[in-house]
């Protein structure tokens, strides 16, 4: 339910946008979620399998509190939430105002199918004569011109690819609901003027465009064109540049002066491309290179035509804008070094390969060679295609590709084992995330994936074109060649399409490569207040980080809206009181939709009416035409109001499309919406129609009617036994506890307190700031001391935050909504706090160095010690001649087999500082894999340019250190030289990584599970990355896993936002489907407690009963399944209802 007047706009409905939208919607704001694409889901709609489980699990992002506000089915299929308006095929076209008070304009692109009328029956597809490569499968399969953009979405509304469409009109003839608007007349109304001095060009263009249905005229010169423009209203002008007399650019200027709305496309030969580019600066939309390829020409003309159709903008007032526009990809086939992509069919992108593995993909999940359909035996993954490549203007890492390749190789290995050999060509294997290193090790050592260090530079094929030959250069400079069946290219990130336009519109700066530039020390703030980024907009991220950043952006947006007064409850938000029908026996009003004229006869409404008239639970049956229309819906409302029914069953199409309507109807007629159900009785008819089956004649058992009848009977069984009383709720103490006063904990405290809720911040030390007391600045040069002071001040001066210094948690119990926690201060004084949620931000410390002579020799220091000494001057680069840094000391191997993520950046930071202060200093970095994901890569490049030497080592040949006559000697094997090297160093710096500080007693007090390394185990590493397994407990910062200061801040904001979902309500309602216990039947065997995945059940020793926390219970039904006694039951899915439903389904 909307509880606040504030609204937000989320741009981009991929995983980040969905997360941000849900986070805002769950705290009661209205959200408009838009996407350029005609469907939601972003790139994840194409990815079936996710690290680390190699499955999906996106549904775990769905709301867990106030569940009934949202859909509760596969999130890749679709999303419905009471507070979210989803607008697909929609772009942001204008923004006015400021944070808290924006007015945005949204422009919807025509899809030529009326989404309100399309019922997804798919008859249109069966008659469409056009086939084109399907983008969804990266061109590996074909689709029709009218198609489902994502085959598995709900609602399954078709769209028309108007470039491919030949406007034959066959689909219009078969569409039963008259939903297709081809716009043939509209094209005739789109007037195009072709200007060229060559008649042959004019004529051919006229023919092509006329064939496409446009109104085309021609002019042979500039002056003639200007005359025509003055005489008639033209929409588009195509003009040649080189013309005698007035040239194209002059014509452009004159035409635009007289007709500012005219769209102009320039035509040019290669020789004058530069002129064409100049022309774009004075108002041309784009340019075409002669001779024309009609396939390139038509989209250029269709695009402005469609934009013109969409020019009716929708305006909306919002308090904040979250950009989650996702990523674009490098196109390898465009450049010179195409690695065979676009030339040999067996060279595919990582995304295309993922589609090949998908059951909905081109080969239904079988791994086949695209060239001949035979099984694949040898696959090579080539990393860094269009990333970490200065020639491709990509001095950045795309962050996710290493793990993507490992995952794909593992998926192949898990399915095909030894039958398929997998090789990954890589430069550095970037496993800089929680549990990434172990996953990679599993791939290499358990599944036999081969990791080859080296950059593949070319892909060719043998004489018969059958096998690919991949050449690469090893670290030692040797050229290697190997034969493969397939090559998978890890194509790097590029800014999402239209990022530039969007940033210009929002007045938000971009970085050197066109990605959104965020503010210093923030992953999510942009230069413009009120505009935030989540997901991959500011650089490609994996799901875990995208989701964290989306929640952080949602939090910042929420604060912006709240600060502008958007947290006030809307006037009309009075609770709806539903009629109490709990004592009445079921009386069902059955409404059968007869659909529209075209479909009526298929709906069998009268036969169904006869079939169900006798059922004692059915009170009335009515047939309503076009129930989805306002008229139809009004008729249904009249019928309920006029009768005595206490249940409504509507047999129509698309149950999902009615979710919001059903709620409105419930409120209108005072009947709980859970007692209104829509069942799809149309699909059997459409399935028969698609298959070309004839309608049964009288007397026969009509299979369509039988299926429709079964569907209704099943719904009736469900509805009849539905629990009519409202679901339980729990009380919430609207107060938060934050444990840990480092940057993450302080950020989380402010992020919650800014919404008006009280926060207790507990810090073990006697001051706030944590690791920021020794960290001086970031790799980018931002001062962390200033950050620490600023945030500390914010915390200490915040009226809603109480800081408890020198205090520890000594114990606690309770559940979401009400935790009781005991604090003890240094003097031993004890205090008890009650709070609704807890955020754990207990952080990390630098791991102790246990090798290389640390503690024995003064010249051996850790990176932390170096940071402190550089700051206090005890280490002066000017006085040093040679420094060796060893990376991964004691980390990325068992028992600390994880990457600490910040050490490589820290070493680069220190190496660059020392080089700046003393250019003659020799700095050697001994590393295993340099971990500089994202734009940190540029500092790696910079360090190499500054002369820092990088020596790669393997764990099988670690560096060795000797202490001779006062000096330090480091020995290692340089793989480039292929020889052992010996370095005399004045200073040896060890990067030891981080270890978590979570005390076992603290973890126990909050029932938090930790992983093998002592980091807080998330409820789900990708989809719920800051939630602990226990509801109501959240974690942020390095308590979760190693991360930088900026990333810690983002997790603090994200954890706060997750906590706010709970804090935001006095009473937290459970879902309608929630577990209950029939105590009289319960044998207290406690199997249900052991089986509950949400920890929602306990045995109360006082009452000797099993108790269920309804807010924690997610209604999964594990308890009911494991209970043989029928004592564990699920409200809303009781045995009787289930039995009857099954009975009906089997027609027994």
């Amino acid at each position, binding site marked *: 339910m909307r509880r606040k007047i504030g609204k937000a706009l989320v741009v981009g409905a991929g995983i980040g946008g969905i997360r941000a939208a849900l986070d805002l919607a769950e705290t009661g704001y209205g959200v408009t979620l838009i996407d350029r694409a005609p469907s939601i889901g972003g790139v994840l709609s194409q990815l079936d399998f996710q690290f680390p489980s190699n*499955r999906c699990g996106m549904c775990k992002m769905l709301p867990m509190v106030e569940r009934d506000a949202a859909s509760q089915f596969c999130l890749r299929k679709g999303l419905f939430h009471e507070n979210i308006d989803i607008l697909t095929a929609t772009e942001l076209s204008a923004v006015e105002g400021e944070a808290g008070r924006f007015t945005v304009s949204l422009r919807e692109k025509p899809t030529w199918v009326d989404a309100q009328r399309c019922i997804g029956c798919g008859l249109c597809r069966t008659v469409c004569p056009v086939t084109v490569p399907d983008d969804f499968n990266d061109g590996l399969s074909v689709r029709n011109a009218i198609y489902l953009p994502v085959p598995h979405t709900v609602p399954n509304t078709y769209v028309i690819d108007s470039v491919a469409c030949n406007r034959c009109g066959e689909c219009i003839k078969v569409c039963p609901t008259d939903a297709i608007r081809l716009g043939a007349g509209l094209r005739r109304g789109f007037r195009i003027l072709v200007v060229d001095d060559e008649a042959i060009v004019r004529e051919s263009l006229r023919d092509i465009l006329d064939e496409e249905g446009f109104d085309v005229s021609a002019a042979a010169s500039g002056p003639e064109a200007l005359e025509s423009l003055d005489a008639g209203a033209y929409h588009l002008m195509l003009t040649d540049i080189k013309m005698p007399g007035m040239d194209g650019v002059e014509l452009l200027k004159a035409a635009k002066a007289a007709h500012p709305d005219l769209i102009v496309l320039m035509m040019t030969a290669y020789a004058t491309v530069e002129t064409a580019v100049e022309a774009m600066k004075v108002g041309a939309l784009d340019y075409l290179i002669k001779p024309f390829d009609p396939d390139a020409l038509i989209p250029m003309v269709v695009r402005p035509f469609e934009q013109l159709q969409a020019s009716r903008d929708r305006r909306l007032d919002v308090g904040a804008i979250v950009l989650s526009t996702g990523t674009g990809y490098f196109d390898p086939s465009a450049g010179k070094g195409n690695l065979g992509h676009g030339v040999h069919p067996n060279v595919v992108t990582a995304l295309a390969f993922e589609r090949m593995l998908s059951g909905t993909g081109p080969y239904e999940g079988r791994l086949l060679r695209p060239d001949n359909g035979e099984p694949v035996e040898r696959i090579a993954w080539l990393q860094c295609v269009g990333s970490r490549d200065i020639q491709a203007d990509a001095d950045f890492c795309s962050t996710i590709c290493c793990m993507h390749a490992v995952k794909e190789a593992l998926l192949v290995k*898990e*399915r095909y084992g030894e039958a398929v050999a997998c090789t990954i060509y890589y430069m550095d294997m970037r496993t800089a995330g929680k549990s990434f290193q172990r996953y990679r090790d599993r791939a290499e050592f358990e599944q036999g994936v081969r990791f080859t260090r080296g950059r593949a530079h070319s892909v060719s094929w043998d004489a018969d074109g059958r096998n690919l030959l991949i050449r690469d250069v090893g670290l030692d400079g040797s050229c290697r060649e190997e034969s493969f069946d397939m090559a998978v290219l890890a194509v790097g990130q590029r800014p999402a399409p239209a990022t530039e336009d969007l940033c210009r519109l929002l007045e938000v700066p971009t970085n050197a490569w066109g990605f959104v530039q965020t503010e210093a020390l923030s992953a999510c703030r942009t230069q413009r207040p009120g505009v935030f980024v989540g997901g991959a907009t500011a650089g490609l991220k994996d799901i875990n980080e995208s989701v964290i950043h989306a929640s952080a952006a949602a939090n910042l947006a929420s604060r912006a809206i709240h600060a502008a007064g958007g947290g006030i409850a809307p006037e009309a938000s009075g609770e709806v009181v539903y009629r109490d029908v709990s004592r009445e026996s079921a009386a069902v009003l059955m409404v059968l939709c007869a659909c529209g004229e075209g479909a009526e006869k298929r709906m069998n409404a009268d036969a169904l009416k006869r079939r169900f008239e006798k*059922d*004692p639970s059915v009170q009335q049956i009515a047939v309503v035409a076009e129930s989805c229309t306002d008229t139809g819906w009004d008729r249904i409302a009249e019928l309920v109001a006029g009768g005595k029914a206490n249940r409504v069953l509507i047999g129509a199409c698309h149950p999902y499309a009615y979710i919001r309507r059903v709620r409105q109807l419930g409120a209108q007629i005072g009947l709980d919406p859970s007692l209104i159900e829509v069942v799809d009785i149309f699909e059997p008819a459409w399935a028969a129609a698609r298959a070309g089956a004839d309608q049964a004649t009288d007397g026969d058992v009509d299979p369509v009617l039988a299926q429709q009848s079964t569907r209704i009977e099943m719904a009736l069984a469900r509805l009849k036994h539905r629990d009519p009383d409202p679901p339980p709720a729990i009380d919430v103490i609207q107060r938060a506890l934050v444990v840990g006063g480092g940057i993450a904990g302080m950020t989380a405290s402010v992020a919650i307190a800014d919404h008006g809720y009280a926060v207790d911040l507990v810090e073990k030390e006697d001051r706030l700031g944590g690791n920021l007391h020794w960290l001086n600045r970031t790799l980018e040069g931002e001062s962390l001391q200033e950050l620490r002071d600023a945030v500390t001040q914010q915390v200490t001066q915040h009226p809603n935050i109480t800081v408890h210094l020198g205090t520890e948690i000594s114990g606690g119990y309770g559940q979401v909504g009400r935790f009781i926690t005991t604090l003890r201060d240094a003097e031993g004084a004890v205090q008890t706090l009650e709070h609704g949620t807890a955020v754990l931000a207990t952080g990390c410390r630098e791991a102790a160095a246990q090798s290389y002579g640390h503690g024995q020799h003064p010249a051996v220091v850790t990176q932390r010690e170096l940071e402190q000494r550089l700051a206090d001057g005890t280490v002066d680069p000017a006085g040093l001649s040679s420094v060796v840094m060893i990376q991964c000391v004691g980390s990325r191997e068992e028992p600390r087999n994880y990457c600490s993520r910040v050490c490589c950046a820290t070493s680069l930071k220190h190496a660059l500082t020392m080089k700046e202060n003393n250019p003659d200093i020799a700095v050697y970095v001994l590393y295993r894999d340099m971990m500089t994901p994202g734009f940190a890569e540029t500092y790696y490049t910079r360090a190499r340019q500054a002369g820092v030497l990088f020596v790669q080592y393997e764990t099988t040949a670690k560096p060795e250190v000797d202490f001779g006559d006062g000096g330090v000697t480091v020995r290692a094997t340089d793989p480039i030289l292929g020889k052992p090297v010996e370095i005399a160093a004045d200073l040896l710096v060890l990067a030891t990584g981080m270890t978590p500080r979570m005390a076992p007693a603290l973890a126990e007090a909050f029932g938090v599970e930790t992983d093998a390394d002592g980091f807080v185990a998330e409820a789900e590493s990708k989809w719920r990355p800051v939630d602990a397994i226990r509801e109501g407990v959240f974690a942020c910062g390095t308590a979760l896993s190693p991360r930088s200061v900026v990333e810690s801040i983002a997790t603090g904001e994200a954890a706060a936002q997750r906590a706010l979902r709970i804090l935001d309500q006095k009473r937290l309602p459970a879902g309608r489907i929630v577990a209950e216990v029939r105590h*009289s*039947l*319960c*044998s*207290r*065997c*406690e*199997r249900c407690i*052991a*089986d509950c995945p949400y920890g929602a059940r306990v045995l109360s020793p006082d009452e000797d009963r099993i108790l269920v926390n309804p807010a924690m219970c997610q209604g999964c039904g594990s308890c009911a399944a*494991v209970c*043989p*006694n*029928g*004592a564990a039951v699920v409200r809303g899915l009781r*045995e*009787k209802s289930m*039995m*009857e439903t099954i*009975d009906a389904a089997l*027609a*027994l």
Partner: protein
Amino acid sequence: MATTYRIPVADEDLPGALRAFLQAVLSLPDINAVLAPGQLPMKNTVMPMLVSDPEQLAVADPLAPYFPLNGAKLVSRLTRKPSGGKIAAVLRSCEIRAFVELVKLHQGIREDVLIVGIDCLGALNNTDYARFAGEAATEETTRRFYRSVLDGDGGDFDETALASACQACELPTPEGADIGLALFGVNTRQEILAETKTDAGEAALERLELEAAETPAGRADAVRSLVARRKVFRDAMFKRTQEATGTLEDLTRYLAGCVNCYNCRVACPVCYCRECVFVTDVFDHEPDRYLRWAERRGAMKMPTDTVFYHLTRLAHMSTACVGCGQCSNACPNDIPVMELFRATAAQTQAAFGYHPGRSLEERPPLSEFREDEFSEVVGIEG
């Protein structure tokens, strides 16, 4: 380590020696009562009795070939919650296994009972026992039985007269007990051997000041040959039963005599529900449903849900089935329920590698979720 002690048998009076042993156990300071089968004075029958007075143990008759109910449920009733005391219970091996299953389901406290298990000589069906015992169940009835079984000479008792559950029992030794009393392969005319199997058993026997002994060399062979014989019977029974119940039609025929009295579930030691779902309103269908079913099928057997009831119980309980045979014993219409349960349990238990009653450490299969299990069934690839 297990220790073995000797319980002397005087005058070949095996029950007498057992009684003396139980009296000694009852004399232990932390044992408040002994649960053991005893001759009921008022009728010719043997029933479990909870005895606190050592004198009253005079009627104890643990070797009687009578098994009217599975004692696990009784021990569960005595230990479901802390009672403040401790009992010693004389149990057959199938009773011990059933009790272990109940403890896993929090229906009993293992520490509150000292389990004394005796090598199980088997028992007759209730009706057969009445015939065998004649007018009065006396110690002589019991003697005729155990002597003939232990001597293996046939005597006046034929092993094939045992209940088929006992003939199919391949676990006759009391593995889960605290104290196991060995009869097989032991010269029972002179001695019984008491083996300690747990720390609690060890602690108890230590205080009884019995003479230490060695397990005779022939015991293992004696048990092995008995088990081998049982397995032959069992496997033939499985084959027969699986053939008779392989399809839903055959199963329906197999259970045709069932009158939905639910006695089998009352008798079942591992059916621990307080009120079976089959007696709740879930199966109390609306009258119009019966009519609709009849209309659809033309004819329908009443009462309904018979096969469904047995299938449900198989689904719920077969992994925990210890094969005690009380279900068949309780059936008024002589449906071979035990045969069906054991034949099914053999497969469900093998599927999960589960051995009911073997160890408290083994979690019931349905209480444990393993993602990588049965991928072919759940459709999720490993």
